[in-house]
């Protein structure tokens, strides 16, 4: 397995763990009533996100210089595409009435992995 593929594979477990805890926290919020417990449930995913962040940073430090440049370009593209989507949604909300259950700022996060992998593909092709 190449180093870059190891890097990508090491990214899978922490976000899966985070997502599982996030879903569990969301489910807890449906049934838990006292406010302190609800706040605790809402904050539960944070340590798992910190673990994910630590894994990414450690992985980036193990990459060589070209691999780091590729990741930087991928993240830059993803950030800019996300920004574009947010700004476009903002203008569209002014132009027309968007159904909030279909088009809302809270839906933007779902596009981030796609934007990242699009940026990663562009960056990798540049140096092939």
């Amino acid at each position: 397995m190449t180093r870059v593929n190891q890097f990508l594979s090491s990214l899978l477990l922490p976000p899966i763990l985070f997502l599982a805890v996030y879903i569990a926290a969301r489910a807890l919020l449906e049934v838990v009533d006292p406010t302190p417990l609800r706040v605790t449930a809402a904050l539960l995913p944070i340590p798992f996100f910190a673990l994910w962040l630590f894994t990414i940073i450690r992985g980036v430090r193990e990459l060589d210089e070209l691999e780091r440049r590729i990741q930087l370009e991928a993240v830059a593209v993803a950030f800019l595409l996300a920004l574009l989507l947010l700004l476009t949604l903002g203008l569209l909300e002014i132009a027309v009435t968007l159904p909030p259950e279909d088009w809302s700022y809270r839906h933007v996060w779902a596009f981030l992995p796609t934007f990242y992998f699009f940026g990663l593909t562009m960056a990798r092709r540049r140096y092939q």
Partner: protein
Amino acid sequence: MNNRLRVLRAERAWSQADLAQHLGVSRQTVNAIETGKYDPSLPLAFHIATLFNLPIEAIFFPDGDGKETGER
């Protein structure tokens, strides 16, 4: 920048993976340097020069220099 990396590698019958392992970088990085799509950092350029026991300017030279890499 142009470079003679591919020629130097071939003289030693090394694959790109072999050279990558010697340098501690990925094969993709070696390929990108050889094809001129990526210029190495100064530390990596010095590492390459040390590996081939040559001065940096004997391996890397600016675009348009009279020296040829041999594959363009």
